Structure formats: C-alpha cells, structure tokens
C-alpha cells in the first residue's frame, strides 16, 4: 500500500545528544508463528536511536507492531534479527533468572492500568519494591505519590480503590522509583478518558526528563505525542516509515502514511468538519 523506501535516511536519524545513543535498535525484527504455519513479522527491520534526556514518540495504528517493539526494547520478546543495545549493553530476553543488573535501567508503563498493579498488595509495598533498586535516588513513597498528584494515604490502600487514571499514575510512580534511564510507555494513556490523556502524558514527560531519564512514548494519538515528544517515529506494518523532530513531522510530513495519519485527526474547533472530508 505505502512505499517503504521513501524514507531510508530519515529512518536512522542521528540523535541530537552528543556521544553514543542511550538506546540503539539495529535492524530489529520479531516474528510470531501463525496457527496455519508460516511466520508473521510483527517488526521488520527497525532501526532507532534514543539519546539522553530525550522523548521519542512512536506512533502508528493498531497492528503496526509498536507494542511488539516496546517488548523488544525491554527484553520481553526475543528478536529474530538485529540487536537491541542499552547503554552499551546488549539487551537479552528475560528468562527465568533475575534481570541482568545493567538492564534494570529500562522500565515500562503499560497500557492497561487495571492490570498494572498487583491487586492483593498494598501500594506502598509495590512502590518499595521499585525503590529498592534505586536507594540513592532521593525518592520516598511519599514524594513519589506527591509527584504524581496523589494523596499520601494512597500508600496504605489497594489498587481496587483507585480509578484508571489514578492507577496509571501509580504505575508511573513505580517506574520512576526505580530510577530508570529509559522509560518506555506502551500506550499508557490509551485506556484513559480523553481529558486525562494530555495531563498524564505531560506528567510522564516532565517526571522522566526531570529525573534525567529518556522516554519512548508509544501512542496512536498524534495530538498528545505532539505535545510531549522531541522527535517522532511513525510506524506502519512493522517498519519505521519516517523519523523526524516533532515540528517537522507536523509541518512538513514526508511519507504518505504520516500525511494520512495527520489528516485523520479531528480538530477541536467546533466547526463540525469530519477529518478527511473536503
């Protein structure tokens, strides 16, 4: 449908930060076996770089492989091809043993806030688990809850007494507590009301950058990504079709798919115009 050789140079844009990139994906591919035999390439030759103190937005529609890419970055899936390197260390898939120490700097916030927290353990205990990784980070349970705008007594409660938006904030607090260098958000706002999405996204961005981490923010919602990302990568059918600084993607999109995505965003102007109609 769309040609993928239109953006070969853009697909491996140089990271703005000096020195080696914090996270590097080199021609990564991931395959799933299909029921009727044969293989499906969810991710097909993706190369990306993430610099220090940078927010990279990854956008694409359902089925494009962005969640699989998130799992590859965290080592939750094994690449069929290519390598993932974090801070110079190769990211090995998570097996039965403990996570390799050098990889603990990668943390993730998941899409489903209702499954992100253990329903039978108190919030405090779950935050403490993360704090144990980063004792010198300066965070405490109280300061974490404060940072995500939740009252201090939340620590004593269980996850079922919180709404989706609140649970997601707790999940963000937990990820931050571990002192990550790379925070991966796998559609962290998709399950939330539209009114909360921008706020939570901005909160994630601010907290990540302020604590010195970089963030990969995966979303199908371009407006929110525009709000918080420094660079945006557009993904279609397992490939990155365009990567550019945010403003450039908005003002001067190159790839037809990017243009199509941008055209589909409804404007909140009250004019009653459905996107795509002339």
């Amino acid at each position, binding site marked *: 449908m769309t040609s993928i050789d239109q953006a070969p140079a853009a697909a491996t844009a140089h990271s703005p930060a000096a020195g080696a990139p914090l996270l590097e994906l080199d021609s990564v591919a991931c395959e799933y076996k299909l029921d009727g035999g044969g293989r499906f390439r969810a991710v097909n030759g993706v190369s990306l770089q993430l610099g220090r103190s940078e927010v990279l937005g990854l956008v694409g529609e359902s089925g494009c492989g962005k969640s699989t890419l998130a799992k590859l970055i*965290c080592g939750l899936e094994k690449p069929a091809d290519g390598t993932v390197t974090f801070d110079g260390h190769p990211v090995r898939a998570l097996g039965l043993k403990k996570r390799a120490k050098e990889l*603990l700097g990668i943390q993730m916030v998941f899409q489903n806030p209702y499954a992100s927290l*253990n329903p039978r353990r108190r919030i405090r205990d*779950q935050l403490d688990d993360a704090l*144990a990784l980063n004792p010198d980070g300066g965070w405490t349970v109280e300061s974490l809850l404060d940072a995500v*705008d939740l009252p201090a007594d939340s620590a004593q409660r269980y996850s079922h*007494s919180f*709404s989706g938006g609140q649970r997601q904030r707790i999940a963000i607090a937990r990820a931050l507590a571990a002192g990550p260098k790379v925070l991966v958000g796998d559609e962290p706002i998709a399950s939330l009301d539209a009114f*909360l999405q921008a706020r939570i996204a901005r909160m994630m961005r601010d907290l990540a950058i302020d604590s010195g981490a970089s963030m990969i923010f995966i979303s199908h919602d371009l407006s929110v990504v525009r709000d918080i990302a420094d660079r945006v990568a557009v993904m279609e059918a397992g490939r990155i079709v365009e990567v550019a600084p945010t403003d450039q993607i908005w003002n001067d999109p190159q790839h037809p798919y990017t243009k199509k995505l941008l055209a589909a965003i409804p404007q909140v102007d009250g004019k009653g115009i459905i996107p795509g109609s002339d």
Partner: protein
Amino acid sequence: MSIGTPKQPANAPITEAARRDPVDPGLKRWQIRFPKALRTPLGIVGAGILVLWLIAAIFAPLLAPFDALAQNFPRLSAPNGENLLGTDTLGRDVLSRILVAARTTLPAAVFVVICSALLGSVLGAIAGYFGRAVDEIIMRIADLVFAFPTIILAMVIAAALGPGLKNAIIAILLVSWPSYARVTRSLVMTARGSEYVIAGRLLGFSAGRSLAREIAPNVISPVVVLATLDVGSAILTMAGLSFLSLGAVPPTPDWGAMISEGVSQFAAWWIAFFPGLCILTIVMAFNFIGDSLRDTLDPHTAQEVGETTS
C-alpha cells in the same frame, strides 16, 4: 543527583483540589466499601452449624451421655428417654457414638484437605509458571488420577495400603490434589502474563520471587474457596471408605461405619439415619461457607465493584 522536582502539569494548580482531581473522578466511596459489606445469610448459617459441631467435637467426652464403647444397653432399641437416638446392634448408645465420631472425622477431613490443597497448589503453580516439560509431566499425572472415579481410586489405594484412618487419609490425599493443581495452574498461567508480574520482573525479581511474592497472594483466595468446599467431599469420601470397612478401625466410632452397620439393620432405621444426618449438616455447612467465601473473596466480584461506571 537531584531528586528531580517535577514540574506541575501545565493545567492543574498545585492545590488540594488538584489532588482530588476535578477531571479524574476516582472511585466513589460506595464502590470501595462494597466488598466488606458482603455477608450472605447462608454463610452465617453455615458458620453457625460449623461452630456448633466444633463445640460438639471438642466437648464430646463431656457432652456424650454415655461411654461410646460401652455395650450396656438393650440392643437395637429405638430412640427413647434414656438413649435419645437409640442403640445399635451391640447395644451402644448412638448419640454418644456420633459425638465421639466427630472428634476423628472433622480433624481428619480438615487435615486431608489442607494437605491436598498444599500439595496440589504447589505442583500446579510449578506447572503453570515454568510450563513446558514440567507442566506436561505434572498435568499428565493429574490426568491419570482424574481418569478414575474418586471413590473407586480411593478404595483401591486404601485397600492396597490396608485398613486404618491413616491409610484412608493418604488415599484421599492422593486422589484430591489434582483438582487444586489444575485450578492453581490456570490461575498462575493467567497471572504470569499480567502486567504487574512483568513489572516485577523488570524490577529485577527472579522467577521464584515473582511466583511467591506476586502471584501467590492472588492465587490463595480461590484455593481457599475450593478447599472449603472440598471438606464436604472429603468427609463423604471418608465415610464412603469407612462404609466399605477401609477407614477407621472398629470399635472406634465413625459415621461411615455406623451407616454401614445401619444398612444391614434396616428396620432399626435410627442407626444409619442419625449419622447420615450429621454428615448432611456438616457438608452443607461447609458448602454454604465456601459459597459465601467465594462471593466475598472472588477477585472478579471484587473487581467488578472496583470499576467505575459511566
């Protein structure tokens, strides 16, 4: 390294009002209090019956009007002023025998259920978490046990081991563990893929720690419910084994054995009837309690309550 004071989100003021989320409504209070409020009438009835039986069992020697083993009374006499529930073929007081029998049956049943729940859950959790070869082996053995009707298999094992309460317990243990294994396995398999478990692994938990600290608390409630309901079955199976002379050794009073005896003395209906009634009440009591526990502890019901409505 700086703590990293977070910038305030651009559109929310730093006030208590913000904490209370003008836009994020949170859960209503009624939705949180709901789980604690549930106490079904049946559960209370079940608990009441169980408490009565516990008292009866503990104080049996004091409550029993006569010695359970003494063959003093006219044989096969119907319930009357002296022997409230009649006497059996050897002239023993039925009421006393029933009360004393509770002292062996109840603890034995609870013990066997606890053991099989523990054994089954551990095996099921290992199968569910580690998968592949371990899973196959454990589940195929479980399938083997499931292939036989419970009482038949228990009979065969008890017969092979010889009569006696201890052997009856072992037999029941060996036929009961697979149900727990199966339930625990599927619970663990579901939990294993949950985001919170993955989050734990990303925080550096080993598989073992993940299993013990994160997954176990979520698995305990359903297993407890299953175990409670299983006590009734255990009592029935033990009674069945005793009925076939494979359980408690005479002259120790035992409900199943008493029923067995009563069957051959059909005219003296009270010999089988009252022990049968006892089994009925206890099994019902445990079933009521189990159902009530399931309603209150079931994560689905609890979670349903936790979701917001729009």
